[in-house]
């Protein structure tokens, strides 16, 4: 009976987080450089959906610019948070997140190749598409290297995380070599990319983000039972059984793919994979069945609100990546202290 009650509470929290995200979505539509009131922005949004008349300028900024950006924020927040849940679970380490695995440095290298040298992995592509594809492909390398190394040398989860960091260093050193030769213009582009921002998200980028996000989150949610088993397994053991090992590889690849998909459109927005899961965990506990949807919803709300702050901060405003790291950095320390008794570390 009590068990059912707690579960109902967890579901309630998931719904609450989702409601917050939805509220934030409508709120953020009225924020930006273009002056428009809250009611006008809502009017323009639903007006466009309903096919009624909307002032063309309002329509342009609300529907063509802010709506995809807000949807992008939801997808990024949800995707990166779920990726964080999976990685923390797989590595049994509360500090693991998509970026400590070097995924972002891989993406940055791919993007730099395209932004600075104009190299595209798929020759037919150019411009933004090439940047996106490059970033996506390169961001899969670090995970591949970790899995490969782990295959040849039986590694503890901790050693795998450290391998990720090493790969991150390796990739950034290559990126540095490229950036040295960059012109001021492309260097600035590359930097902008690295700080992370949702400016780049347009309607064109949404189909891919949406498809990958929805499919991966659903699949991971379906696997949550297996993830729970792995989390609850013998923590003292250096390595996992064969099946668990396979699940780890599979979920890791899925999480990386999802991260790659987000990061290639937004650049590096750090710490979301920590913030979402950890806040959600406080409310719904560690059961992945609830944790995955809860952190997806909370992560989405968090990124939308952070992006709203970014938009409010003006023409020279803070990029959303900086806001996230301002919040995420201290949170990281707090997690470290809070986990002191835990066997996680």
């Amino acid at each position, binding site marked *: 009976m009590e068990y059912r009650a707690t579960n109902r509470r967890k579901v309630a929290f998931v719904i609450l987080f989702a409601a917050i995200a939805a509220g934030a979505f409508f709120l953020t539509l009225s924020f*930006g450089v273009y*002056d428009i009131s809250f009611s006008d922005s809502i009017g323009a949004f639903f007006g466009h959906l309903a096919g009624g008349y909307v002032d063309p300028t309002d329509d*342009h900024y609300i529907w063509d610019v802010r709506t995809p950006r807000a949807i992008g924020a939801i997808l990024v927040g949800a995707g990166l948070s779920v990726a964080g849940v999976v990685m923390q679970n797989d590595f049994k380490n509360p500090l693991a997140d998509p970026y400590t695995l070097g995924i972002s440095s891989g993406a940055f290298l791919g993007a730099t190749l395209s932004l600075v040298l104009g190299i595209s992995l798929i020759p037919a592509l150019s411009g933004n598409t090439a940047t996106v594809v490059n970033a996506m492909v390169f961001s899969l390398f670090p995970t591949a290297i970790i899995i490969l190394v782990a295959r040849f040398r039986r590694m503890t989860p901790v050693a795998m995380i450290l391998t990720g960091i090493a790969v991150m260093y390796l990739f950034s050193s290559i990126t540095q070599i490229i950036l040295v030769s960059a*012109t001021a213009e492309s260097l*600035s582009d590359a930097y902008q990319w690295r700080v992370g921002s949702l400016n*780049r998200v347009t309607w064109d980028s949404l189909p891919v983000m949406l498809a990958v996000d929805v499919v991966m989150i659903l699949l991971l949610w379906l696997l949550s039972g297996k993830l729970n088993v792995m989390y609850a397994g013998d923590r003292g053991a250096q390595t996992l059984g064969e099946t668990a090992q396979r699940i780890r590889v599979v979920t890791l690849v899925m999480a990386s793919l999802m991260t790659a998909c987000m990061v290639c459109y937004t650049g590096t927005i750090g710490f979301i994979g920590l913030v979402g899961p950890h806040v959600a965990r406080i409310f719904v506990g560690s059961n992945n069945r609830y944790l995955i949807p809860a952190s997806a919803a909370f992560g989405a709300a968090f990124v939308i609100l952070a992006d709203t702050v970014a938009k409010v901060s003006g*023409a*020279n405003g803070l990029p959303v990546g900086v806001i996230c790291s301002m919040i995420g950095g201290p949170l990281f320390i707090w997690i470290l202290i809070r986990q002191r008794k835990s066997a996680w570390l």
Partner: protein
Amino acid sequence: MIVAAAVVVIVVIAAAAAAITRGGGDGDPGESIASQLQIMGNANDDYTIDDKDMEIVDDIIAGTKSFTDYPLADANNDGKVDASDKQLLQDIIDRKSGTVLRVMCLDTSGNNTVVDVEYPLRNVVTYATNMQLPVLYANGGQYIVGYFTSSYEVAEGSINPAAKDLEGSSREISDASWTLFTQLDAGLDTGVGAFLTDYSAVAQITASRQADLDAAGIPLIIYPSANAADEITTVLTLGFLFGGDCESLAVEYAQASWDVVNAIDSVVGDLSDSEKTTYISCTMWIYICEGDSTYNTTATDAGGNWYGNVNSGFGSTYSGDGSTKMQSVEALSNYQDVDVVINNRSMDWGLTADEMRDLIIDDCWEKDRDGYAVKDYFAGLEENMYFVNNILPGAVKLAYMAHILYGDDFSMEWADGILQQFIDMGTAPLEGQTVDSIPACIDHSDYLDAKA
């Protein structure tokens, strides 16, 4: 730094104002070129050094004129006007080789200074596009022995082919590049004649490099020639220093330039600020030029009223002397009542029709910036947005800007005519070009035509 920049801006504006007010008063066409030959001994402050300057010096020595009215009469820059100035001035008038001229320019902190340059100026080393092009416009490419960067194949094609590429970048002179430069100096019998750079690139002349130049006796000549009006005097002065055909070309260049300035002034001069066309100036596609930046002041010289003067929100957001990247496509959304947007772009020329089309579409209007095409950043302003080629002669830029700002008074044909005039003048970077092969001013209809 800010103080220095302010000093530069004040100097620039004062110089331009002085020039404009002085122009057009006299029947002699030469007279309309105000002072601006930045060389001591140019006592009457005109476009050259000749017998008229000698007369003034004679008068000052005789006591009939006052030195304080003619500060430039002090040819040897020793603080007094005497027989030694007369002797030097005579050498200058005779254009005698080996004469040491006192050239006025800026120092690394933006203050006025005077450096010694041996006439005729040879073996120069250039740094920064905004100085390199004035040198080339004065047909001085033949006297360049080394350059730190050359970004425009056709426009900068007249650099002496034997000149040494010193391997800098548009942003940086590395220690290794500086070593190449010093090695170049060591290898020349007479050494490097002068180091020429634009004020905007002055950060690369560090204290130790300045000390190197001083110790080796290489004059460092700095002009703020990113500004169109200052570019005119830069070309004039450099042409004089190179001597021979360069001098006559530079005089013609400056004359034509000041004619443009005067033509603009005759229309715009009487307008009050509220009557003037407002503009926003951009660079690198989506960077908004701040109030005191040279690109911005150039458009003011062309008769525009900076939008920041009428919209205080814009004015305070974009104050300063640099540029700010637009953080989103909404950046200009609240400023839709601006009259025109002038987008400064550096574009090489010598283009075929196909290349021109690609440039207009892929490198201007639809250039990808952070996931959006450039035109998306100017939504609602497309009809009033113009790309102006930044590496053209300053007066040509002013002419196109005047057309953009006051299309009724200055037709496109008129501006094209100015460009044609500069092409016909025989200045090397424009050699063999036509109005069609040079991307000078690209507007929205050009874009629509190119798309069709």
